[in-house]
């Protein structure tokens, strides 16, 4: 009965949304997009929002990867919120998985090949993660996937060494410091230029590593933060086993 009801509802929703999206063209040229309107200056622009980003983005932010420019600079406030969401998730998982006395983990065995292999790989994976988030403003990638890669290196250690346990205090401190860096960079922008999260450092030459002002700084902070938070989540999840 419940299945039939759910199926009917699902099909209904499908039709409703399919009809709505049928009116939206796929792969349309950007010149057909509507022009944006600035509500503060009360004037209509002569181009659409994405066109503005693509035309002036390099001058506005100094980044070559426009997605990064949007994520960290134009919509940096969203990213701050997103980092907060992940922080909340790791805090929440930690508080829900909290047990008063120390957890006894069942010691599993893994073989020597896995142990040696993961020892070798661990460093490389961390390096790769760091590469991804340091070059976020130049190439695809950035803080989030970089952090996830770093977390996956810890995941490997968890799988290879049954007794491995990331120290919570260190994780907490690194994620707090990274978060504080993000907020302080934002507040510095407010103090220096009058806008929160203003990109106050010099842009440098495009396509060089030290360019795009505060974007690499923020992306490194995000990378460290995401890495330690995801590790914390994995750790809390592993800690459940008794």
């Amino acid at each position, binding site marked *: 009965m419940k299945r039939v009801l759910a199926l009917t509802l699902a099909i209904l929703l499908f039709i409703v949304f399919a009809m709505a999206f049928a009116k939206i063209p796929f792969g349309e040229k950007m010149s057909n997009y509507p022009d944006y309107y600035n509500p503060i200056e009360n004037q209509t622009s002569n181009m659409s929002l994405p066109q503005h980003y693509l035309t002036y983005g390099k001058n506005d932010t100094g980044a070559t*990867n426009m*997605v*990064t420019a949007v994520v960290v600079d134009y919509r940096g406030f969203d990213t701050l919120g997103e980092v907060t969401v992940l922080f909340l998730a790791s805090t929440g998982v930690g508080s829900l998985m909290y047990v008063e006395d120390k957890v006894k983990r069942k010691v599993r065995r893994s073989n020597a090949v896995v142990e040696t292999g993961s020892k070798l790989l661990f460093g490389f994976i961390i390096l790769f993660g760091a590469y*991804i988030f340091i070059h976020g403003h130049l190439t*695809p*990638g*950035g803080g*989030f*996937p970089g952090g*996830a*890669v770093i*977390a*996956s290196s810890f*995941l490997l250690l968890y799988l290879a060494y049954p007794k491995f346990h990331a120290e919570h205090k260190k994780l907490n401190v690194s994620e707090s410091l990274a978060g504080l860096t993000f907020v302080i960079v934002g507040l510095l922008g407010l103090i220096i230029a009058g806008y929160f999260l203003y990109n106050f450092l010099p842009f440098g030459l495009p396509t060089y590593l030290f360019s795009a002002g505060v974007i690499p700084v923020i992306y490194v902070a995000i990378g460290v933060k995401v890495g330690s938070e*995801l590790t914390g*989540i*994995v750790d809390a*999840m*592993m800690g*459940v*086993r008794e």
Partner: protein
Amino acid sequence: MDLFTIVSLILITIMIIAAIIAAEIKDLLSAAIASGVMSLVVSILFYMLQAPDVAITEAAIGAALSMAVMIFGIKSTKRWEK
């Protein structure tokens, strides 16, 4: 039909089949893996739609890590759905 359309159609079909498997299979571990496969296919679709940043993120976070977390969750609870 050009190559883009054909490959897209194939991938979208795989994606939907993976989602339906994840919905209907009783073994939760297989369901989690099916949803991981779906995420992986979606990340290829992201790449085809010219969103490499999103593709990397989806592959690293959406497919790999969330599947790992899900599998830990299943391991500390029950594997079979009633």
